């Protein structure tokens, strides 16, 4: 693709700037715009302050100690996935047995001894396409100690990303902007009201 060179004095045209922000310039033109922006940046008052207050150089011994700890940690074999504790297994087993017993009891009671059910139709909404679970951890990697009933339906599991996981409610979140997905064009949305959710801190928003 042939692109106009960046004018050294006037700088990039609005079209070139727009293409730059969208990543549409070739590497050479992009580097020219980047260099022009750096020369004409309006943060000449801020950057020197940050450079001036940079931390002092650390002694080599400190670096060596940190490097040694990194070596030690990366050479240690990863721990096997956590397995559910026996207490948890027993609790699950007991709960399952109790549930089965209760269901069996209901089944065996003669129908004339049970209250007649409401004839109104109860429709359970089918999960829509937008309600698909978003996996972030495998079940075997999670050892759940306790969960508030309010959050029981909001647990999401899948392969953990590098960032941390943090509980939040949608009211804690302010959407500044949302880019459509580059492939399917879908835009993420945020549930209204105090809906518990897990934030995956990927640092991109």
């Amino acid at each position: 693709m042939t692109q106009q060179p960046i004018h050294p004095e006037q700088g990039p045209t609005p079209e070139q700037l727009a293409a730059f922000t969208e990543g549409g310039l070739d590497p050479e033109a992009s580097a020219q715009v980047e260099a022009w922006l750096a020369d004409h940046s309006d943060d000449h008052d801020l950057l020197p302050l940050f450079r001036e207050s940079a931390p002092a150089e650390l002694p080599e011994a400190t670096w060596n100690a940190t490097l040694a700890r990194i070596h030690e940690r990366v050479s240690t074999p990863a721990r096997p996935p956590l397995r559910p504790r026996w207490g948890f297994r027993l609790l699950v087993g007991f709960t399952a047995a109790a549930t089965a017993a209760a269901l069996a009891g209901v089944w065996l009671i003669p129908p004339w001894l049970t209250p007649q059910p409401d004839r109104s139709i109860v429709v359970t909404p089918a999960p829509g396409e937008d309600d698909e679970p978003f996996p972030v951890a495998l079940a075997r990697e999670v050892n759940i100690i306790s969960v508030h009933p309010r959050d029981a339906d909001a647990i999401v599991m899948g392969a953990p990303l590098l960032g941390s996981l943090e509980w939040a409610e949608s009211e804690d979140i302010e959407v500044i902007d949302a880019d459509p997905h580059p492939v399917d064009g879908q835009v993420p949305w945020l549930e209204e009201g105090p809906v518990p959710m897990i934030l995956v801190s990927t640092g991109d928003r």
Partner: protein
Amino acid sequence: MSAITAPCPPIPGDDDLLARFAAGERHALDELFRRYRQPAYRVAYRLLGNEPDALDAVQEGFVKVLTHLHGFQGRSSFKTWLLRVISNAALDLGRQRGRREMLSLDAPLAESLDGQLLKEEDVGRGLERADLRVLLDRALSTLSETQRQTFVLYADAGLSYREVAEAMETSIGTVMSRLYYARQKLRAFLSAEQET
């Protein structure tokens, strides 16, 4: 008489070092660490405000990166990926250790500022480095976490717009927008400090 010159060995690239590390060559990690420890430390220090925590974040970031090499698919450079992970680790650590409480806006400023102190020439004249750092820490604490991370990667790690966009996995336009609003907030805070 003839002189024999030995060719200078080429400096290995990051990908080469990563491959050698994956093959079990420990010294490859030493070189990667030496190469990026300083920008990594600057970023972590700015986000955490003290040496021990910053070193913890650097260590955590390197360990995460080196134990998740399969997740690095070369979509960005190793440097931007590493700095992204380290800045995330620093933010996590800051949340755990109450960084924002430490930098409460109610905390007294170590040294009062008068006039137009926030200029480069005045920095050398009046403010000590530590005091300036405290002031900038407080200014940064007025930013959202994402703005702070973006600005620190730009200002302290010296990444270009494109590299910050790579590190944050977003567009250059979004980076420019975040930096614009970050600068506005920083200037507003610093101006207010000058007036008090």
